[in-house]
């Protein structure tokens, strides 16, 4: 017995041909199956005109062949007002939609805990846990176990910054400890990054031991986990970070950072000895990131649970496309099992303030439309830069503007399924007809 499953229009076409043929023999029963299951008279009526034609033809064919005429009920074609309407089904074709989770994402991203409470020999009141994902950020394939966290930047001396940022810190620029308190109590920072930039020989050449005192002050001032950053001077940083790591012994800080262009072994050794995690920083190059992570593990003996990566953040409009894809590639590689890349990631989102759109009063290009007030451009630049990278795979954000911090935390919470602090459900059904004030 032959059972054929074909679509309605195929069948119609087929039968059209059949009617033109002579001497054709059909053996076996003809069975029509409809997508969506069911069958029977009701459905036939529902599907309408086309099926009516088919039924008529089938009946004819069956009759011609001397087969069981009447097996398919004969139906009058419906009376239809216009050819266009006749093409539209009478009822919606039922459907159910689903898609499979990604099967290759079998491997988890490492979890890294920052901050040590008294039970772990530290003095922090809170800790943060980064990573642990088994899917791209906010994807339905697997739950995202930990939220995104924000660390706000604090500097060990007053530095130049965009006016919109500076406004928030005017009163604390001279005191890293006060600055740190403010970002935690007022601006909701989960962590504080203390940048020891004054240690750069071309800035103030502050000694490593003086810098370590600043770290102690900040540890005293706040009880959240700390990120300790150098000045970015590859010659001075190893010494500075070593002293700072020692001063913060047992607090499980994140030491920022180790880079291939410097004596990363010395920094790694200090992090290990004094119980900190280490930030593995490379510049937009996935293979360099693999190499550095490998060296940290194999050469320096850093544990997997002590590595966070910073694959470099370029600002929106200034290379974010490279940063985005680099980070997305790293995360995807980790998920499918690259053991040299499956670590949580951090972003220097503050780099967004380097984009001229975030701080310049007017466009330097006369061809541009008006750029509008800069105090509104800056925070959204920082938000957009961070948000794109949150979607690509960044777990931890180093940021500066309080509004940016608040919005980024809120939106990433909503993407994880939280309410992001929103007070009520929103009815979106009538956006087409809504009146907007102002």
């Amino acid at each position: 017995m032959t059972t054929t499953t074909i679509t309605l229009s195929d069948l119609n076409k087929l039968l059209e041909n059949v009617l033109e043929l002579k001497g054709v023999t059909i053996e076996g029963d003809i069975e029509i199956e409809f997508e969506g299951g069911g069958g029977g008279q009701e459905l036939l009526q529902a599907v309408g005109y086309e099926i009516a034609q088919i039924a008529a033809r089938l009946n004819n064919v069956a009759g011609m062949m001397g087969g069981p005429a009447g097996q398919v009920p004969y139906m009058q074609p419906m009376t239809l007002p216009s050819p266009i309407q006749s093409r539209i089904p009478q009822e919606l074709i039922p459907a159910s939609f689903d898609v499979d989770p990604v099967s290759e994402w079998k491997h988890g991203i490492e979890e890294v805990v920052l901050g040590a409470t008294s039970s772990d020999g530290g003095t922090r009141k809170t800790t943060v846990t980064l990573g642990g994902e088994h899917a791209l950020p906010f994807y339905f394939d697997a739950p995202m176990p930990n939220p995104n966290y924000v660390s706000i930047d604090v500097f060990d001396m007053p530095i130049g910054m965009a006016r919109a940022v500076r406004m928030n810190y005017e009163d604390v620029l001279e005191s890293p400890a006060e600055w740190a308190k403010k970002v935690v109590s007022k601006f909701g920072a989960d962590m504080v990054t203390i940048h020891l930039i004054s240690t750069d020989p071309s800035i103030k050449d502050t000694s490593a031991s003086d810098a370590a005192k600043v770290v102690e002050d900040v540890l005293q001032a706040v009880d959240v986990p700390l990120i300790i950053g150098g000045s970015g001077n590859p010659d001075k940083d190893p010494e500075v970070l070593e002293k700072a790591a020692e001063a913060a012994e047992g607090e499980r800080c994140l030491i920022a950072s180790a880079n291939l262009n410097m004596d990363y072994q010395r920094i790694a050794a200090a992090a290990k000895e004094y119980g900190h995690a280490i930030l593995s920083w490379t510049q937009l190059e996935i293979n360099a990131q693999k190499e550095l992570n490998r060296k940290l593990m194999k050469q320096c003996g850093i544990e997997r649970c002590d590595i966070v990566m910073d694959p470099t953040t370029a600002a929106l409009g200034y290379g974010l496309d490279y940063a985005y894809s680099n980070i997305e590639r790293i995360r995807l590689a980790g998920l499918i099992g690259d053991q040299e890349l499956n670590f949580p990631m951090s972003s220097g989102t503050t780099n967004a303030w380097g984009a001229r759109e975030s701080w310049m009063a007017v466009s330097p290009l006369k061809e541009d439309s008006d750029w509008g007030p800069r105090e509104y451009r800056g925070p959204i630049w920082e938000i957009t830069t961070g948000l794109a990278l949150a979607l690509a795979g960044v777990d931890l954000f180093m940021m500066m503007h309080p509004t940016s911090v608040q919005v980024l935390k809120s939106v990433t919470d909503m993407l994880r399924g939280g309410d992001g602090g929103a007070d009520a459900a929103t009815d979106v059904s009538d956006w087409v007809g809504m009146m907007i004030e102002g």
Partner: protein
Amino acid sequence: MKINSPLQAYEYLPKTNCGDCGEPTCMAFASHLIDRSMKAEECPPLLGEEYNDNYNTLADLLAPEIREVVIGTGDHAITIGGDDVLYRHKLTFFNKTAFAYDVWDTMSEEELVKRVNDIQNYKKFYIGEFLTLDAVAIRCTSGDADQFAQTTAKVMETTELPLLLCSLDPEVLGAGLAVAADRKPLIYAATTENWRDVAELALTHNVPVALSAPNDPDALKSLALTFASAGITDLVLDPGTFPTDGLRDSFENFLKIRRAGIDGQTDIAYPLMAVPMTVWERSDGISAAYWESVLASIFTVRYGDIMIMHSIEPYSLLPELHIRDTVYTDPRKPVMVDAGVFEVGSPDRKSPVFITANFALTYYTVESDLASNDIDCYLGVVDTDGIGVEAAVAGGQLNAAKIKDMFDSAGFDVQEKTDHGAVILPGLAARLQGDVEDETGLTVMIGPPDSGQIPRWMESKWES
């Protein structure tokens, strides 16, 4: 695309290596088909009668997974959809997300014309081109079909940008189409309530149509199947954009529908629409505008092919246009430009000599700042492995030796070519000043941190 290697495409080509396509061989042409930089139509012999079957098969095999839909006509028409991958680094995304901004039919005529002009005239210069907005979405807030038709006519008189006609009332949409059908607008939207009437409008006027089923992918698929069975395949799917509490569900719907489409579920492989402006239902002012840009960013990154926004403030448009450019820039384009000394304008012996990095973005930014402000000068571009100035100074890819090398290899002797014998370092490379002086023996000046400030810097630090 159903095939992924040039060899598979080559099978269907004439294999004569005639060169009419501009490529030396059929194989070379085949690789362009696979990376989608050329189309099958560009092989003239393939269009001949004898290759008819080959052409048809090949065109089928090469068709993108996500259907392309065209909105509008002529030069301003926009194509949306057409993607073949889920991640831009796997190939590139095609047809950047179309940005439509709203007007409504209860605006005064004066307001309406001004807003439409603001939308169509907006531009932001970026790496050699202008970033602009794409379309006008006309919302029916009056509930009155005639008023909607009049507004539509006024908008058409003011702009040639493609239109989106937005109302859930088929009568209103019909009135709009009566004036605008020739412009091939997208009609928004067919729902599980009005779908039969809207389908009739789409068939009668042959226009693309958006299907809307807020947070109900089953219903969305059902609508898509039903429309396709009626022969309407210029479809855009709106799975609903819930701005806050439902954001996770909306995000999930976009991910699932696009994944299904790329994986071969053709029933639902259509362009997706996001509506960030739903946020104006719950708040207003700067907070709504910020949140709207946030939603626009999310759905530009994850699979929105067209979206409707409300705020046209610069602080909304600038980030929205730039995140779109970020996502849709072809990742296969080179990161670096050639190193060397380049002339901007017509420099002479008194002209300044600037130094910058060979990261393509940095180079184009500096170059356009100089050119746009009519500054005649020399621009020394150092090979920093395609890394920007600040990062290259930190990472050691920009240093004194590399700068000297650059001038030497270009055969450009600053002492000889200029009267001043000075070079100008970017402000972000200020810490290299001493090293560069020692290494080159030249006078080293420190420019501003951002090349956009060069005109002001020139006034105070140069000519004087």
